């Protein structure tokens, strides 16, 4: 199958301007406050783009959205644009369902200037680039941070951990009975397999080679990372969210002193911990290297749309990733802004002052990386989760767990490729 060439992606196809009113449908998975914020941005967009009507369609959560997109692709009723994760995008590209945005990006009339391109956080652009072509525009991005209970740290006279050793040390010290509570030092979310790439990177290793479609984590560094985690879970200084589902629960209860989790969880910690514990966030401690995964979706446009619609979609993408909108978006939702220039903005700075916990995320842009994007990655992470759980439960050795995960995962990737 031909990769990435889409029929309507040539510069010549891009209209000069939108002369007739055009309506674009935008399927998203933003709910509650996030949806309200998105609606607000779109409203503002439409005020400056009178010819464009944006129909926002809420398609539930991400998994519902994905299902719906699959169904729509099958029925040939895809919208003009949608949110998409990178690994979804690689499927869509394989099936020629989304458009290469490079011509738009480079279009003199409608594209980004060089400074624009530089301003957008590199890791975000890179994660949207497949075979040298841009297929998406970063939209709602989050990252992993370290949450910690400031009271507990103060009590044990610990400073915020900066690297693995400090982390391990703090976890050990924080574990035990504090007050009336039995406290565990460090917590991880249940889908630990999804975090594993970061740990491997921090250990100095590589998780996978995307081009070769090869998993590489079954390496010395991979083992180091897993050993590091396993030692802590086995001696009880670290735990998974487990039956508590999300770490935000036990953390805001004071049952866990620190945890590593998505910055998107902050609002939940905020409301859950209110009046119970004091807390703050910090960038992830580093191992041999600093490495922070960035997650979240991007905006894509589907090939089935008309040229006018595509141009309109591009305009919207451009707008949403512009400085002011992305700042508004970040402020309203807790996602990170996609432009570096935001960080120096006075408005943003005063916002950060009021909400210092949001600072941790943006501090990590430089150590940021994006996850392995091939079709099947999600499944590989699931396999890893399962095997890591088995290792934590002493059902398997680190060695065997990793080998088995690599074997199963590689099989999935190979199948996906054939698919």
């Amino acid at each position, binding site marked *: 199958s031909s990769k990435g060439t889409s029929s309507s992606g040539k510069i010549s196809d891009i209209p000069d301007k939108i002369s007739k009113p055009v309506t674009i449908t935008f399927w998203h998975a933003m709910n*509650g406050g996030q949806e309200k914020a998105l609606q607000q941005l779109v409203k503002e967009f439409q005020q400056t783009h009178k010819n464009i009507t944006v129909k926002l369609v809420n398609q539930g959560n991400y998994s519902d959205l994905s*299902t719906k997109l*699959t*169904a729509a692709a*099958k*029925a040939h*009723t895809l919208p003009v644009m949608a949110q998409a994760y990178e690994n979804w995008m690689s499927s869509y590209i394989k099936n020629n369902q989304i458009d290469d945005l490079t011509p738009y990006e480079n279009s003199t009339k409608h594209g980004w200037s060089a400074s624009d391109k530089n301003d957008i956080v590199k890791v975000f652009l890179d994660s949207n680039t497949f075979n040298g072509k841009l297929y998406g525009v970063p939209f709602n991005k989050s990252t992993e941070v370290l949450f910690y209970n400031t009271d507990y740290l103060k009590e044990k006279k610990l400073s915020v951990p900066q690297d693995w050793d400090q982390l391990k040390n703090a976890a050990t010290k924080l574990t035990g009975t504090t007050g009336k509570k039995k406290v565990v030092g460090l917590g991880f979310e249940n889908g630990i397999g999804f975090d594993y790439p970061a740990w491997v990177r921090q250990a100095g290793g590589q998780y996978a080679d995307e081009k070769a479609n090869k998993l590489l984590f079954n390496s010395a560094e991979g083992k180091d990372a897993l050993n590091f985690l396993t030692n802590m879970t086995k001696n009880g200084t670290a735990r998974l969210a487990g039956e508590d589902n999300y770490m935000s*629960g036990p953390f805001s209860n004071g049952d866990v002193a620190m945890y590593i989790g998505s910055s*998107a969880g902050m609002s*939940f910690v905020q409301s859950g911990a209110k009046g119970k514990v004091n807390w703050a966030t910090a960038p992830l401690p580093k191992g041999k290297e600093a490495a922070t995964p960035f997650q979240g979706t991007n905006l894509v446009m589907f090939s089935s749309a008309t040229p006018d619609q595509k141009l309109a979609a591009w305009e919207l993408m451009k707008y949403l990733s512009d400085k002011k909108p992305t700042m508004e978006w970040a402020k309203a939702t807790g996602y990170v802004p996609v432009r570096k220039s935001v960080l120096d903005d006075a408005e943003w700075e005063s916002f950060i002052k009021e909400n210092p916990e949001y600072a941790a995320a943006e501090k990590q842009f430089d150590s940021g990386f994006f996850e392995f994007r091939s079709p099947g990655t999600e499944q590989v992470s699931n396999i890893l989760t399962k095997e890591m759980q088995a290792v934590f439960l002493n059902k398997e050795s680190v060695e065997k767990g990793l080998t088995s995960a690599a074997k199963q995962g590689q099989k999935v990737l190979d199948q996906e490729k054939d698919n």
Partner: protein
Amino acid sequence: MRRGAFSKGFIYLLLIAGGILMLLPFVWMISTSLKAPNQVMTLPPIWLPHPIEWSNYLHAWHTAPFARYLFNSIFVAALSTLGVLLTTILAAYAFSQINFYGRDVVFSILLGTMMVPGEILLIPNFVTLVKLGWIDHYEALTVPWMASVFAIFLLRQFFLSIPKELSYAAKMDGCSDFKYLWLIMVPISKPALITIALLQVIGSWNSFLWPLIVTNSMTMRTMPVGLMAFSSEAGTEYNLLMVAATMVILPMIILFIILQKYIIEGVTRAGIKG
């Protein structure tokens, strides 16, 4: 006599113990819906919210267009239930009273359709609805649910247990098969029909993925979709979610309280000797 009182007491004890277990999540739901966020996830759980946050209800109600959702839910549930009753009564009649060629084969095939996981059928059905042009229309929410193999199977079992004497008597009275079905079998099967209606309404009411998939506009969506507004990838606003969940299930509980009377009100067969 004393034994009777004793066993009655024992029955109550069992039923109430079981009842508490049944009620627990419901109570939790209501109590959570009245909590401030920081009381939601505490362990051990807080059962009596303090203070009681009535404002959660107001807040949740405004988060999504629940009035519209409510109307859609009622409309869709009513329509698809009526449809299901109609098709079910007719089909169950054929399966229970008419001995036709291929009856057992057709029935087996119908049974078979229940055994394929619905997850597999979602997308082909979506495609069909697109071809019919029903996406984002009430047709998509109702028509596919207007026939239910489960209901046909259930009603067939009931129809089979109606004494044939009644059909004889009806024929003597000059009643055609069709009229016999509507005037005798249907009223006598009231408990079964109400059960079917109840299960259908609840199924329709609680169905979430389907309305989400086959509709695109807010104005076409139903109550459970409203629950979406309170979850995100990283967590859930449980207190508001429980408000919404309470709003979603309350009509069902009221409906059940109304309908269960009719399920109890069985039909005695008196009037037929033997």
